[in-house]
């Protein structure tokens, strides 16, 4: 058995391998395999897996790639994520990908899908529209059509039909994946010192670059290790981070928050991998419908859709209580309209619930964390004092 350090090292390398070497190797190792890149936040990866595809999360270039040409595509007042992705597209990073999915999270990502179309990167470049109507017979039917379009795109490349049994098997694998991830969060809720937030982040981010089977094995190994006591508890406060669902915070930011005395007991960094809450039915005759129903009824809260009747502020508070957290850190990418426009409402909910909170803005390539560390440190001290 590998040590936790070995696993985390491997996960970190995978998570930030902007050449996506593991995914590209997987494609080379078999016939009729397709690589489908998807942007944050969520796509039903099961359908890609079921037709011999590997869904690969493209979460931006972070602070690992110098932006040379990408800046010429974006004004200074647009978030950083799309310029890093354009830079990767202009370089060789995304060569070998067969298609790209752009989930409907904001106008930047939407228009980026058009930029990929204009430059004809990959065989298909599809904007994946989430329905904003949550009636299964209306929004659900629309969602099924959106999934079918992806299947048609892949079929045109590898001619692999969607078989009920295969999709059920894929759903089963992703159910396991979600369960393992959730379990790690549950363990961390009680023993956050056993696996740091940054290590958790590496683990989850690695998972979107490799086959789910491999990721499940990796998560299982980690679960076994952290089910036993390790590390040492510190006198830290416990926080939930929200607002970082798309452009990812640099690793240094996550580390700085932890070093400032905050255990991050929940977050929305890799929200797509945790989007569906609970299992999806894996034995149905209509597995596509099962995926649709899961989207309609089991989605987590997010800035990506209209939260009619189930406001995200309330759900954030529920999460704070569930994780027994002391406070919330609103941490959003600069110029991120979805996160920043949600923030005042969610802050108000926190205030009404008496939950302390602070906020930061970052770029994925922010390099200085002194101020953030100080702010997080003060936040942690004030909570300890107050408590």
């Amino acid at each position: 058995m590998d040590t936790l350090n070995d696993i985390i090292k491997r996960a970190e390398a995978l998570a930030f391998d902007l050449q996506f070497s593991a995914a590209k190797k997987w494609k080379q190792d078999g016939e009729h395999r397709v690589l489908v890149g998807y942007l944050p936040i969520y796509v039903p990866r099961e359908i890609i897996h079921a037709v011999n595809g590997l869904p690969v999360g493209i979460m931006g270039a972070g602070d690992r790639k110098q932006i040379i040409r990408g800046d010429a595509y974006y004004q200074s007042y647009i978030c950083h994520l799309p310029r890093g992705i354009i830079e990767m597209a202009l370089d060789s990073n995304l060569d070998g990908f067969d298609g790209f999915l752009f989930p409907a999270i904001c106008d930047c990502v939407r228009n980026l899908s058009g930029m990929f179309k204009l430059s004809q990167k990959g065989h298909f470049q599809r904007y994946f529209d989430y329905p904003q109507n949550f009636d299964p017979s209306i929004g659900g039917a629309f969602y099924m059509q959106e999934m079918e379009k992806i299947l048609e795109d892949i079929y045109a490349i590898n001619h692999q039909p969607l078989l009920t049994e295969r999709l059920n098997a894929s759903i089963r694998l992703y159910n396991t994946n979600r369960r393992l991830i959730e379990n790690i969060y549950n363990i961390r809720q009680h023993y956050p010192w056993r696996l740091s937030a940054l290590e958790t982040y590496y683990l989850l981010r690695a998972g979107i670059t490799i086959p789910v089977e491999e990721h499940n094995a990796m998560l299982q190994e980690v679960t076994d290790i952290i089910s036993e006591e390790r590390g040492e508890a510190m006198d830290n406060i416990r926080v939930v981070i929200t607002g970082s669902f798309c452009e990812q915070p640099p690793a240094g930011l996550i580390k700085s928050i932890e070093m400032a005395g905050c255990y991050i007991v929940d977050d929305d960094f890799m929200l797509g991998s945790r989007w569906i809450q609970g299992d999806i039915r894996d034995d149905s005759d209509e597995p596509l419908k099962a995926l649709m129903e899961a989207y309609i009824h089991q989605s987590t809260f997010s800035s990506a859709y209209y939260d009619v009747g189930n406001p995200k502020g309330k759900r954030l508070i529920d999460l704070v209580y569930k994780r027994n957290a002391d406070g919330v850190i609103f941490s959003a990418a600069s110029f991120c309209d979805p996160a920043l426009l949600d923030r005042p409402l969610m802050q108000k909910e926190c205030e009404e619930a008496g939950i302390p909170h602070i906020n930061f803005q970052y770029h994925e390539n922010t390099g200085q964390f002194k101020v953030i560390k100080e702010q997080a440190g003060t936040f942690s001290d004030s909570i300890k004092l107050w408590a």
Partner: protein
Amino acid sequence: MAEPKDAIKEKSMNLQKEMLAKQFHDLSKATENGRKVVYTFVPGNLTELILSFDMLPVYPEINALQSGMRKKSGDYIKDAEKMGYSEDVCTYVKCDIGMMLNGNIGPTGEKLPPPDLLLLSYTGCFTFLKWFENLERLYPGVPVAMLHTPYQEDGKITKDQVDYMVKQLKEEVIPKMEKVAGRKFDEERLSAMMLNSARAEDLLVKVLESAKNVPSPIDAYFAGVYYIGPIFTAFRGTAEAVDYYSELWKEVQERMQLGLGPVTPEGEMKEQKFRLVVEGPPNWTNFREFWKIFYDMGAVIVASSYTKVGGVYDLGFRHDPAEPLESLARYCMGCYTNMNLPQRVGLLEKYVKEYKADGFLINSIKSCNSFSAGQLMIMREIEQRTGAPVGFIESDLVDPRYFSYANIKNRLESYFQMLEQRKIIISQEGLSV
């Protein structure tokens, strides 16, 4: 920067002023008169449907732009920022929220009524969704009807998408409207209004396409924003809108016959040295100064994308009385910002060519990702496809902090110099051929 005190106005402008005054007066009396009020957006608006229920529409974007023009937006934005709204987000939203915090006083100085229904027909901009989520909290208990407009992802509108929208209209939007209005949906009435819509749309297209003439009788951006006013907002589907566009078209025809140029706030524009296509919304806080830079330099805008945000009627779409709900669906999906980037580029390329433009200019808006994200690529594509010199300036819709007169003027002066030189070269090449 001195501005003329009394802007010269066309007759149609006065007509529009009267229409607006009446509309805002009706709104100020809505509660008293028991009229229900629906807040909604310009792109993909369902005005005929709202009016068919005898409800009154309010467009927060229009209030924001009016606040910009009345120099109120700066303070409104600051008030919203004090509430926790980031400097980075869409200033229309902040301006609207700031206006609400300051008593919701509309452009005529009268108070606007609160909404009875928030109609979130969310077309072409993700921020709309966030905007109304915020309004829902600021007006607790007001119902929201969501109409999700699928994006023209594949560059076309499919039957499945139309069906999805019609289903939402039938099962989500109309029942909520019926409940608020306290009456049944009247499809015949809606159809009858659409006859008026289509008539006004025909006339608007004639007006906008008149700019294909050399010289152009209109400015299709600065004056264009007035021309689209009635049809993009509360009047589409009404007889007043048809009257307004008939009058406008008459005026434009007269100008064409006389070989006259556009009417600017300082009178008729005499010399038309440069014909431009402009992409992106205008700046509202310094609108007249901004316009003046162009007409002082002899630049006339012959086509713009902004005048298509509430419908790209020149591509042929008309509201159809025979299929009222289907045509509302097609209308929503057809608006400019709901078109994918290759479609937008295609449209702009067509404008540059068909309107015989000398140049292509982008006014990039800091607030507006829906327009701004991707504009630099659009610019390259247009340059490559048409050979037209491209220009790029930056401002904001309603945040005065982001309008730098000197910067914009300098950039435009250099751009016009470049256009001038190019004209000289082309004419010399033409002579030597």
